[in-house]
């Protein structure tokens, strides 16, 4: 082996920098001019970034597929606003953002309607075309595809609080002084804003009066003070299983399904029978919409990928990708539904899915979210 001298190291470094300098313009040229036929970048909630979902697509297309998962919608949308519109091809967020925010701000672009609308015919009945959240406000353009969805209110340990009691009592469980110190709060602050409003008996998805904000603040202080812990999904499930807590605010199929699949069917997502939401409803449900980013050099694989995840076997894989397990719109097709085992259906609470969705309003944007979040963050600080 040749001895390593200072000269050889410097020579090596020089060659390295030379290579970088030479390759630099090539990278730029690649970005600016070359068609991105073998490249796809996805900004998504976890699941779509898993190897189970992406690897078959990679081997089918021979493409380099990168997916980054984040756990809240505003962060993803702000990434596009901050200039990453040139980077991403697909964005996967909750239902209202595509129609109400991203399309008006030209962050996403419409899909070829004739090509993609037929897929909605094969989905579960609630997604029959024209499906509201997949369409532009004008109702003329198709702006995204639906897949994962689920009711998302709170989770209880039915050994401690029966499903019936939880559904009947609803959000007042968190107003019950006897349960202080026995519940947790999932660290999902946009949902926590919704739920504090609901616990205060107020519809979150409207402009609020000062009196309503005063009620919100009082409720936030009390509910956060009474919480045993605030944490992520794993912490909530662990605390439920160990008996540290009996229930937790903000949760549903998405959060509790891994614990149910792991042999804890006594843990259950609950959608209250009644509440202050329009129509006297007590729950909120989310539906993910995946849209093509308004990237000036959009990868042709973006549309390919949207078609790829509609296939029954891939839709099933998406439903049971690592992390969380969820129902998918494609379960409307028999070929897809038949792939789900009894245990899998039980993990995603298929038995009560229809009635829970019927009792829920769909996730929406809180017009005065910033103010509510500031009040809630201040309330959190008073826990200590």
């Amino acid at each position, binding site marked *: 082996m040749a001895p390593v001298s200072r000269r050889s190291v*410097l020579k090596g*470094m020089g060659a390295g*920098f030379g290579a970088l300098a030479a390759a630099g313009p090539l990278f730029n040229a690649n970005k600016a001019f070359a068609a991105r036929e073998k490249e796809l970048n996805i900004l998504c909630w976890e699941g779509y970034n898993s190897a189970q979902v992406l690897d078959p697509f990679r081997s089918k297309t021979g493409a380099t597929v990168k997916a980054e998962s984040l756990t*809240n919608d*505003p*962060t993803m949308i*702000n990434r596009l*606003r*901050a200039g990453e519109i040139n980077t991403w091809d697909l964005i996967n967020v909750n239902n209202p953002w595509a129609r109400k925010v991203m399309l008006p701000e030209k962050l996403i672009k419409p899909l070829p309607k004739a090509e993609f609308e037929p897929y909605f015919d094969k989905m579960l009945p609630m997604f029959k075309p024209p499906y509201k959240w997949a369409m532009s406000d004008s109702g003329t353009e198709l702006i995204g595809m639906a897949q994962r969805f689920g009711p998302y209110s709170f989770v209880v340990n039915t050994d401690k609080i029966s499903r019936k009691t939880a559904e009947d009592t609803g959000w007042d469980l968190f107003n019950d002084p006897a349960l202080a110190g026995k519940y*947790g709060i999932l*660290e999902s*602050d*946009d949902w926590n804003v919704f739920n504090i409003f609901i616990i205060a008996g107020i519809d979150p998805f409207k402009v609020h009066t000062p009196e309503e904000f005063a009620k919100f603040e009082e409720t936030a202080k009390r509910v956060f003070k009474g919480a*045993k*812990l*605030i*944490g992520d999904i*794993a*912490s909530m499930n*662990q*605390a439920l299983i*160990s*008996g*540290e807590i009996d229930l937790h605010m903000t949760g549903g199929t998405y959060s509790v399904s891994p614990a149910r699949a792991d042999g804890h069917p006594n843990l259950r997502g609950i959608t209250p029978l009644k509440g202050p939401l329009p129509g006297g409803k007590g729950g909120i449900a989310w539906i993910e919409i995946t849209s093509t980013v308004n990237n000036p050099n959009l990868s042709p694989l973006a549309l390919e990928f949207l078609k790829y995840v509609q296939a029954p076997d891939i839709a099933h894989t998406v439903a049971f990708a690592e992390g969380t397990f969820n129902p998918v719109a494609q379960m409307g097709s028999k070929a897809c539904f038949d792939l789900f085992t009894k245990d899998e259906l039980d993990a995603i609470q298929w038995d009560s899915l229809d009635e829970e969705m019927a009792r829920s309003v769909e996730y929406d944007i809180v017009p005065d979210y*910033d103010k509510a*979040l*500031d009040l809630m*963050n*201040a309330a*959190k*600080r*008073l*826990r*200590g």
Partner: protein
Amino acid sequence: MADLALAPAPGAAAESARQLRHARMLSVGARCALPVAILLGIGFLAPLVAIFGYAFATPRSFDVFTSFTLTNFATLFDPSNTVWLSFLWSCGLALLTVAILAVIAYPIAYGLNMVFGRWSALISVFFVFPLFVSENVRLYGWVLFFIKNGVLDGTLKWLGLSGGPEVLYTPGVTLFGMVYTYLPFMLFPMTLGLALVPRDLVDAARDLGAGRLFIWREIELPLAMPGILIGMLLTFVLAIGATAEAKILGGQSIIVISHDIEIAFTYSQNWPLGSALAVLVTFFIGALTLFALSKLDLDRMLGRR
């Protein structure tokens, strides 16, 4: 040098040639270092400049460097803003962590230097080894230890006792987590500090009739002080920015300042406010560090009066 000595004209020409070569060598070195220096400079400065720029941007916007406002700082200093609570918790927990670690790490550092002999290296490895495992994983491990029906509670119940204490999700267990996490950062500077104490000096003092406490107070402690203080400073700076302990073990029973910064950058999507908070905390820690270092006369402490 031999070449130079044998050179036919060793006068001014040779001297200037040497100077020229010397100058050229320096410039080659500087040129070689330049790419790395620029890379390091950008890597170090760019994030700081961006954070600093954002701190003066319009709240809840991305108008960095195109807007200037002091609103973010005004928001933070608004008496109705409770962010000072998070700041107090962070400072208080960091100070307690430093104090507890000083007491815990000193005997271990003393042992590593004076008592454990050939076992010292192995014992050091035991303290270093946990650093190879992610901090979050280790903290989740402690959750499993302390949780109801977990390792501690379950074992005590199995032994017929009433079970373990309910310590999880409290500020106390957050402090425990911080002491656990930052132990090596106090221990090793302290061990190096104690290694600076010459054994001869201790032996001489003992021969002259000094008691144990007297030797510790007058010889060991002052001579080991640089290591001890560097350990304290390092631990404090790390602990004031700690967030995982309060989140994972403490169950967010308290909100620490770094968590507030994180919330501003994520759910609040108020990068300017988060940046202003980050700038304030950075300045506070920087000022405190400079103040501490200005009070430390390392030469005097090392005995080079």
